[in-house]
């Protein structure tokens, strides 16, 4: 077996209570690397089409990356993957922290869960021994209490736990899978899948070292990378250690990246109070920084707001997305209320991007009389009303009153409310987008629409190149320079960035430093022992992306089903702000990306020739 892998995965059938190991051939790791690559391959191969995402047949996979736990810098991540109940598409979400490395330490590269338990259970994996345990006493507990209780029951405060809070138990379609109190695999609604399976938690403990093929080379690469970032890292590499992504809020708003007033506006003049929710005004509540496993950036922070209307004890620093969502999107300049909303989402296990977009949606519905005060349980849902924002967030987390209407995301909420509410529901095929406007970086829109998990800002593709600093995601890849508002000739570039991103994700590398000169191909070669070239890396990335996409095609989804909201296109164009006058040609961008990937622009079906080149002919060939 190549380095980087423990060589086996654990299957858990919750219906029968059976657990078993499976050894995967090395070729499968080389073809899909790890993380959601392995998960997609297993789902495509072993799960029939069109299963109920909340039913027993949906495979829910927790998978580490190739580099996870290997000592490669900032490579700690694991993926949660399965069919998304929020979008009906392939769904995955990424999370940092320590679970991934610990799972490998316990002897497994991945855990695949099928079936539905008769009563709540949790899965314990300690030093290679797995068992299902009764979790009835944990059902209903919040995230922190559950983690504490599981660690206490195992008698090990160092056990690493992934779990769902009450939102996942109640199958909220915006529920997250949580870890380390405040880390989340937030997107795609996979917390609802875990809750529907009555799987409250997975706890792991293990001390096995991750095998590394060439430790000397790994050390060389690590030292060279860290030195490179110190000397030549981009501005973001200086911001993150000091502020985390919370340092970006005013900057991103000023650039026009952030949505303002439910995406109806953009720019600093639309929300001049932004300084109150960025940088020093956020981290003044930080007690200490913390880092994920083997990460020198340490962008996380433990927060304490000791008094005032929104006390939070030992909570977590909100990320940029959370500050933008509960801040600029809702015209809310009260930072303590955002810290509180973040804490509520963490405790109940809810994705903050979706939750904050739902809140902004409700505010706009209220403004237009679509939601009345009575329907809103007496809350005065006006822009910037932070008391109402916190109260509504708690109701969404608890599925209480109006919160029950909103707890499955804006698409479902608009269908429930009716009366034209869909005009204000900002989503792509059910998922609320991250706070990176396609009008600023049009390729972000391509990814929102064309990535198999729609609405994902982390699938940004060539958006980085549109900023102009770099043309390629890492050294060794040479791509033509593109312009921000160029609409033709971008498909191949978007595909190259996107295919590289698949390897970032499946190797377990954090997105943040992935494009800071990280020689991902060389790190993979050093850890695995493979002769892993840049060319193989990009081809492998394309294979993984095409397989994720093929999952959606097999579900009966077509390209026309995925629409970017008019407000992110610029229809009509804004009259003020940095993106004033911009209307992006999203149709051309998406069409050229599909063509570059050899996916039919009408049906989405990958071409037979390309499937053969990718080695997917046998698995996916019946689609073509």
């Amino acid at each position, binding site marked *: 077996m190549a380095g980087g892998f423990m060589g086996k995965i654990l299957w858990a059938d919750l219906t029968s209570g059976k657990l078993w190991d499976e050894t995967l051939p090395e070729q499968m790791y080389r073809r899909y690397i790890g993380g959601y690559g392995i998960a997609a391959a297993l789902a495509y191969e072993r799960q029939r089409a069109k299963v109920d995402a909340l039913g027993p047949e949906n495979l829910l996979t927790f998978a580490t990356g190739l580099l996870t736990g290997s000592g490669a810098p900032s490579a700690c991540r694991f993926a949660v993957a399965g069919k998304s109940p929020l979008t009906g598409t392939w769904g995955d979400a990424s999370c940092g922290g320590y679970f991934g490395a610990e799972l490998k330490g316990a002897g497994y590269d991945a855990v695949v869960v099928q079936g539905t338990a008769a009563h709540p259970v949790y899965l314990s994996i300690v030093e290679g021994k797995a068992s299902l345990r009764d979790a009835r006493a944990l059902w209903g507990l919040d995230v922190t209490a559950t983690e504490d209780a599981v660690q206490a029951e195992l008698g090990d405060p160092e056990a690493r736990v992934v779990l769902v809070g009450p939102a996942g138990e109640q199958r909220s379609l915006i529920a997250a899978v949580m870890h380390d109190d405040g880390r989340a695999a937030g997107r795609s609604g996979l917390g609802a899948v875990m809750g529907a399976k009555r799987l409250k938690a997975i706890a792991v403990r293990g001390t096995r070292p991750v095998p590394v093929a060439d430790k000397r080379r790994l050390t060389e690469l690590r030292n060279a990378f860290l030195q490179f970032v110190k000397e*030549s890292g*981009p501005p973001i590499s200086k*911001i993150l250690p000091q502020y985390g992504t919370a340092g*970006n809020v*005013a900057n991103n708003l000023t650039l026009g990246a952030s949505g303002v007033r439910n995406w109806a506006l953009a720019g600093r003049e639309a929300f001049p109070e932004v300084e109150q929710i960025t940088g020093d005004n956020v981290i003044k509540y930080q007690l200490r920084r913390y880092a994920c496993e083997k990460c020198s950036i340490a962008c996380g922070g433990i927060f304490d707001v000791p008094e005032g209307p929104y006390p939070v004890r030992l909570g977590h620093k909100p990320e940029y997305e959370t500050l933008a969502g509960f801040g600029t999107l809702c015209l809310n300049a009260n930072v303590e209320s955002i810290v509180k909303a973040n804490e509520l989402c963490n405790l109940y296990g809810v994705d903050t991007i979706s939750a904050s977009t739902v809140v902004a949606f409700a505010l706009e519905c209220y403004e237009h009389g679509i939601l009345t005060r009575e329907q809103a349980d007496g809350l005065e849902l006006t822009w910037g009303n932070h008391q109402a924002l916190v109260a509504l967030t708690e109701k969404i987390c608890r599925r209480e009153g109006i919160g029950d209407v909103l707890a499955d995301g804006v698409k479902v909420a608009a269908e429930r409310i009716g009366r034209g509410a869909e005009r204000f529901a900002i989503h792509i095929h059910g998922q609320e987008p991250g706070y990176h406007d396609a009008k600023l970086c049009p390729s972000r829109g391509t990814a929102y629409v064309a990535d198999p998990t729609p609405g994902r800002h982390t699938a940004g593709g060539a958006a980085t190149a549109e900023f102009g600093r770099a043309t*390629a995601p890492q050294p060794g890849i040479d791509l033509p320079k593109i312009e921000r508002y160029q609409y033709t000739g971008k498909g191949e570039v978007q595909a190259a960035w996107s295919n590289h991103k698949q390897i970032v994700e499946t190797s377990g590398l954090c997105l943040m430093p992935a494009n800071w000169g990280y020689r991902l191909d060389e790190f993979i070669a050093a850890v695995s022992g493979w002769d892993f070239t840049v060319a193989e890396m990009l081809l492998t990335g394309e294979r993984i992306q095409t397989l994720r996409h093929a999952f959606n095609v097999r579900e009966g989804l077509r390209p026309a089903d995925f629409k970017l909201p008019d407000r992110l296109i610029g229809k009509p164009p804004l009259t003020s702000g940095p993106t004033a006058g911009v209307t992006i040609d999203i149709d051309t961008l998406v069409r050229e990306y599909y063509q570059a990937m050899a996916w039919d622009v009408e049906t989405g079906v990958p071409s037979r020739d390309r499937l053969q080149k990718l080695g997917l002919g046998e698995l996916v060939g019946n689609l073509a």
Partner: protein
Amino acid sequence: MQGEITVTLYSPFRDLVGCRQVSLSAALPLQAGALLRLLGERFPKLAPYVSPTGEGGAAVMLIVNDRMAGPEDLIQPGDEVFLCAQICGGCRRAMGKPGDQEWRMHAARGGWHA
């Protein structure tokens, strides 16, 4: 006409310079590209970022009166100017050793399948 331009800085630039705003004296109107050069000369710690050829080059964007400013756009007296970091990564030079395999993708040659 000689005048003052006040530039509001965001992180990490405000941390590098040590203040939230800087004022520069210059002949106005001034092109945005010239303002970046001036910022690099006046504040050497900004130079790697504001110079298009610096290690961190093209890592910034000027927003003038709530609009993106291109290098030739003119800055007038009283304009509100922000120096923003482009929140992105990407590589400007190779980290690896000289002679590393350089794999080139050219769409015209059939992309990486060629």
